[in-house]
């Protein structure tokens, strides 16, 4: 009986935890991405995070779309037009389809994952441009963990965590699939901090992000993310350090939030 009760409590907790409480369709967040060039932070691109409802004949899904576009003055040097999207369940944020369509200074790549949660596999499709301009593709079936998600779904999933219940120093690992490989992202809650942003002064949850087993993100506690300490938990500021330098992501505007 004791075990039955325990299992029941865990199941209830799990279902409560997995419910989407922070993200609504119609949300639009705009950021400025700046990169440190010889000690001076220079704005290089605009990053947009948008959500919208997508209807099929049987289901309604939430489309999580992120785009990155370089500012006009940089286009002649290094033109970036990136599109990342994940189609998730609006109730649980479980991903069903992920697409990454990137065009960076002449380099083009397309990645698509179609999830099969029953068998814990993804059908991956990769398209790349050859030097002569023709496109080749590669289909693969990849075994993933039951909780593995793509980058965009993970980002929104982090926003849906009950961070208010965490204590400074608490850490949680997430499995993400990137470039057909499963990687572990470690998220550490550092505490609350009030920061000044373009949308006003905000009390935020300060989180440290690291990727285990790779050196994509450099340093210890150098990759930080600030989420508003309210029900929306929107990312307002991020700092990152990569092998070729460091930069920042600052919020410019936020609209269509679930809670006003």
């Amino acid at each position: 009986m004791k075990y039955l009760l325990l299992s029941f409590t865990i199941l209830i907790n799990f279902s409560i935890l997995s419910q989407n409480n922070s993200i609504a369709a119609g949300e639009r967040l705009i950021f400025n991405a700046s990169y440190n060039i010889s000690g001076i932070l220079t704005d290089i691109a605009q990053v947009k995070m948008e959500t919208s409802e997508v209807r099929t004949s049987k289901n309604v899904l939430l489309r999580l779309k992120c785009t990155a576009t370089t500012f006009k003055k940089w286009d002649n040097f290094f033109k970036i037009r990136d599109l990342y999207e994940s189609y998730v369940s609006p109730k649980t944020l479980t991903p069903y389809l992920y697409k990454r369509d990137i065009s960076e200074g002449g380099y083009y790549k397309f990645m698509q994952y179609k999830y099969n949660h029953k068998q814990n596999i993804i059908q991956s499709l990769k398209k790349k441009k050859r030097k002569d301009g023709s496109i080749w593709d590669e289909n693969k079936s990849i075994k993933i963990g039951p909780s593995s998600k793509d980058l965009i779904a993970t980002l929104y999933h982090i926003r849906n965590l009950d961070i208010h219940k965490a204590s400074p120093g608490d850490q949680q690992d997430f499995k993400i699939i990137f470039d057909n490989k499963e990687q572990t992202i470690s998220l550490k809650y550092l505490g609350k901090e009030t920061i000044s942003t373009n949308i006003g002064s905000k009390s935020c949850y300060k989180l440290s992000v690291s990727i285990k087993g790779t050196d994509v993100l450099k340093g210890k506690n150098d990759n930080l993310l600030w989420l508003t300490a309210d029900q929306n938990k929107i990312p307002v500021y991020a700092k990152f350090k990569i092998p070729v330098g460091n930069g920042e992501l600052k919020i410019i505007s936020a609209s269509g939030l679930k809670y006003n």
Partner: protein
Amino acid sequence: MKKTFIILGFATALISVVLAVTPLSNLAIFPIIIAVICGLILFYISKKEASKIKTIQYIFLLVIIALSLTIYKSIVNTQEIGDIEQLEQREEENLEDSKELLEDIEIDENL
């Protein structure tokens, strides 16, 4: 000594003008500072030696041009994004393709 400052001042003044014209105009501030320092040192030397150094005028002229361009660009330049027509087209194509791919999925709310 005087020659070193003339070469350094003139070279940094030229670099600052070149940088001020490019999107990296923010970086022009470093050579501007070096060129101004060199110009002032040369001015001090010329006063001390009671001689005229014409290069000082050129250095300051280039510095003024670079500084004006940098200030103008930082005030006037708005963060404008370029042509996104192709990106919007890709977004639309991906959405239509995704709808087809998602047609056969079954959403499990217990996941």
